[in-house]
């Protein structure tokens, strides 16, 4: 069952660069895991630590990069990530949202996201929020100026609210919103349409019989 998200208030941390790709979010050596959990300590591994990360290390013993914001004391326990344009570009690896969620992020705010990453977030209880670039600029300024800066993200009302009361609305697709509000399982919902899928399949088999039969016969 996916974790629900309705209203979330949390400490904000910055990821102040454009085109943060999924290799940066979770480097490939950690993709060898066959599990869905435990990626948090390796989130942004190349930026967070000074050594080269390997699967199975005790990350608490590794030298941390003191210049990387997530290592600053003021951003510990952040659960909202403020980011720049095209966040999550690159591969389809769901390990990226798994790592963000495992670290403790529930919401990412950016001017734009890459398509596959955006979609993957909703499957893992993370809300990606698109706000205009000038608003994101202002949020970065406020975040840097105020230690302990928090934001409230209200999914039902589709609003981000700042401590000073200013607020911004955001768009989210209806079906994604419902599923995240309720923590619903996509597969369970889709299987309610099993009859429609079977009906389509029968028609399609009639129309395109060459697409059925599988890959068992040996290649010539």
């Amino acid at each position: 069952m996916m974790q629900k998200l309705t209203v979330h208030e949390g400490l904000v941390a910055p990821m102040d660069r454009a085109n943060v790709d999924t290799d940066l979010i979770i480097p490939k050596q950690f993709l060898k895991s066959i599990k869905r959990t435990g990626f948090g300590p390796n989130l942004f591994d190349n930026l967070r630590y000074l050594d080269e990360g390997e699967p199975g290390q005790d990350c608490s013993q590794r030298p941390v990069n003191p210049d990387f914001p997530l290592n600053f004391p003021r951003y510990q326990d952040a659960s909202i990530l403020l980011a720049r344009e095209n966040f999550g570009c690159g591969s389809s690896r769901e390990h990226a949202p798994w790592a963000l969620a495992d670290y403790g992020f529930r919401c990412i705010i950016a001017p734009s996201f890459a398509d596959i990453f955006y979609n993957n977030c909703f499957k893992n209880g993370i809300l990606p929020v698109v706000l205009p670039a000038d608003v994101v600029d202002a949020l970065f300024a406020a975040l840097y100026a105020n230690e302990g800066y928090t934001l409230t993200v209200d999914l039902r009302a589709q609003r981000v609210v700042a401590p000073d009361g200013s607020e911004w609305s955001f768009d989210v697709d209806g079906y994604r919103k419902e599923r995240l509000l309720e923590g619903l399982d996509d597969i369970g919902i889709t299987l309610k349409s099993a009859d429609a899928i079977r009906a389509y399949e029968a028609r399609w088999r009639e129309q395109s019989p060459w697409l059925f039969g599988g890959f068992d016969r040996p290649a010539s």
Partner: protein
Amino acid sequence: MAGMTLYDKLWHSHLVEERDDGSALIYIDRHLTHEVTSPQAFEGLRLAGRRPWRRDANIAVPDHNVPTDSAERKGGVAGILDPVSRLQVQTLDENCAEFDIVEIPINDVRQGIVHVVGPEQGITLPGVTLVCGDSHTSTHGALAALAHGIGTSEVEHVLATQCLLAQKMKNLQVRVSGRLGEGVTAKDLALAIIGEIGTAGGTGYAIEYAGEAIEALSMEGRMTLCNMSIEAGARIGLIAVDDTTIDYVRGRPYAPTGELWDKAVAAWRDLHSDPGAVFDRVVELRAEDVKPQVTWGTSPEMVAPVDGVVPDPDSMDSPTRAEAARRALEYMGLAAGTPIRDIRPDRVFIGSCTNSRIEDLRAAAAVVRGRRVADSVKQALVVPGSGEVKRQAEAEGLDRIFLDAGMEWREPGCSMCLAMNADKLGPGEHCASTSNRNFEGRQGAGGRTHLVSPAMAAAAAIAGHFIDVRELTEA
């Protein structure tokens, strides 16, 4: 009513159900699986007590972290030295056995990179919907298949329901007039397009490539171009069916035959955008303007023609782009104004789902033939995209050409494109690479990737620095 685009046709022919909330269920004809993004999906099925909806739509092949070294590869799965990689490949074998999914195993001659194997075996056919837990699934759109990458939750969803929960994308047409010049390839065109529209330029769109230059491309060139769509932000890249497509598919192991073939071809002939189809956006390029391309930064949009220079961040219009370029130059160890030709690769990688097909290897071999890799290049890897590509290359003697030049000839797999196996860059090393991503650390922590075509990678290996391949081939 306005005509439909190719993407519109593929979408509508696979629509199972449209919902009031804006979502839709799309039927999936082909689901390709590999070892990296599937274990958690199979685990999900297991925990929920679910079985695959339709076993005959699925096929699996390990590719991402299989070793490419011949000696290590001989031992099969049990011989993989890295225990973590071994477990992942083993897990794919076990899951395929448990869930009754056909798998092309590690040392089968048909094994290879999933996006090379699909079209090569006739698993990918025109008009299908095809998904895979890998963003370069856009490759298959070269055959007018609606194909895109999905996350692991969706891998599980497709296995369990044969459908995807989706939302229709917008239509973007990239029209390329004229013909690409000699020595200029689909890879250069792809990089030039990304340089033009940016790495997020295609976000939210399905791209259809059209125009004279696209029609003139071979199927393999079209695959290279569609493969790179995701680097422009588009999950989907498409090209209409024409004789080149039909000729490519005919006779493939899993392609229909006889009466079914005729029926299929008749249906496939309609897989093009109708006259008058409306695109949300159109981008036009002239093929004649495209020169061999080399990336200089850490995003595929950071690209320049080989006769160009590394740009100056201070001259860039947007502060975000300037900041990104500054950071990229620092990471790459390059100064603004450096001629691209002065960049010297330490390693060369020819391979990946972008550029590891037989035509790619032929193009590289044509440059390398009778020459030697420069002394300053520590390693030049040639990794064929599949066992079939390898066999064909060896039949043509290409392996000898590479070996005689001082290059390494490897077993098929993803290899140094993402460096999940032992093939990787050391910190600070520059690489002339035919892969698709020049992200920080992609090919190894601290590694510096320059994306190029196979001919350009081969030329850089010989010259020891980037050079317009036409200077070597026209001499």
